[in-house]
């Protein structure tokens, strides 16, 4: 699906409408809930932009680590099971690098203001 404007652009436009037109009309609990909702919409916008590339990179790292292919969910499930069984651990080459990269990719979408994410990127 390649129609324009794309989903991320539409989400950004909806969010601008909420911020500029709706938010000033609200107060109290409703205003608070709208702010939470707008933050959630921003998260959705970041996911739309970032997840195609980060999902592909995560799957490639998992395939290299596990020596098999599959869906992202399947590969993560296999990794979790092998860690729980003690077959893969902290000392396994590539594991921590992979997990750190994945956590950083998730935070780029979920919470780019989070302190340890910013520290991981070398920002204050």
């Amino acid at each position, binding site marked *: 699906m390649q129609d324009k404007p794309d989903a991320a652009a539409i989400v950004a436009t909806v969010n601008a409408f909420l911020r500029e037109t709706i938010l000033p009309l609200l107060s109290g609990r409703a205003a608070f809930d709208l702010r939470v909702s707008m933050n959630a919409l921003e998260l959705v916008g970041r996911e739309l932009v970032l997840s195609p590339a980060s999902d592909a990179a995560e799957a490639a790292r998992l395939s290299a680590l596990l020596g098999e292919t599959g869906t992202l969910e399947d590969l993560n499930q296999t990794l979790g099971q092998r860690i*729980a069984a003690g077959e893969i651990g902290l000392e396994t080459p590539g594991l921590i690098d992979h997990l750190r990269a994945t956590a950083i990719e998730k935070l780029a979408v979920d919470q780019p203001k989070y302190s340890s994410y910013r520290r991981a990127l070398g920002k204050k």
Partner: protein
Amino acid sequence: MEVTAAPAVPGVEAALAALAPRLAAGATGVCAVRRLSGGASQETWAFETSGGERFILRRAPSATWKSEMSIDLETEAILMQRAGAAGVPSPRVRHVLVPEDGLGKGFIMGFVAGETLGQKILRDPALDAVRPDLARQCGTTMAAIHRIDTSGIVDLKATTARSQVDDLAAAHRAGGWVRPVFDLALRWLQDRCPATVPHPTLVHGDFRNGNLIIGADGIRAVLDWELAHQGDPMEDLGWICVNSWRFGEIDKPVGGFGNREDLFAAYEAAGGTVDPARVRFWQAVGTLRWGIICADSTNRFSRGDDPSIERAVIGRRTSETELDLIDLMTGND
């Protein structure tokens, strides 16, 4: 677990009005009754008696409800009374509810003025002067908590490092989510479980920035004893260092306002003994615990137990704890 609906405000107000003469001499009624917060299990209300004295009501509307994790509100009231007597800053418990009060289970305490919001405690200019002293005050306060006599209190759960890690592993399996970082953290914690402490103490269980009332003079009250239990006192020192309670101030590990050296020094000056390795172990346990709570929020949202946008957003905070756990396991914290 059935939770009956909370009575409407008029019901609460009438019941509090009937109690007013026993709370404050000469009081004939109550006013400014308002609900502050609360989920399905517990509610917090603020009100004033007719003479203008301010009170807080903490209650579970249904007398039958009890979470597996939480202690009874009656036990919480007893702990707060003993805490106050032991020198822990504590609101004074003024009345423990009985069935005839018509308010469910719970208690009424005196209102304590001050700030509870973690973000504001770290940024309010009015607290600039006291902020550098807070880590030390936390150490002194925790040492006092860990000396509280718990004899006669029957429903405090006895825990060990091993039992708590086992509980988290069970919650992780039951949750059904796919999070390899949690699997790795559980292995890491299982491999490093410290020996059971020879003398378990009372552990507050939720002592953190956000459960303290802070004023210009420092800690005025320790709140939310709901998760109190018996165990390793180092658990409280580790929990307050979890990054999620630093509100962005990552370089100030104690609640975002101080450093471990001050916390530890004050704890020892007040008669406690610090084991920094165990504190760090408990910080990792706490980080995983908060991660599992966040991940469980996703389940509660997806099942429709709590379809709120807030619940969904908390679910997406799980990744914060994943990076924090990786940092802890690699000594990069």
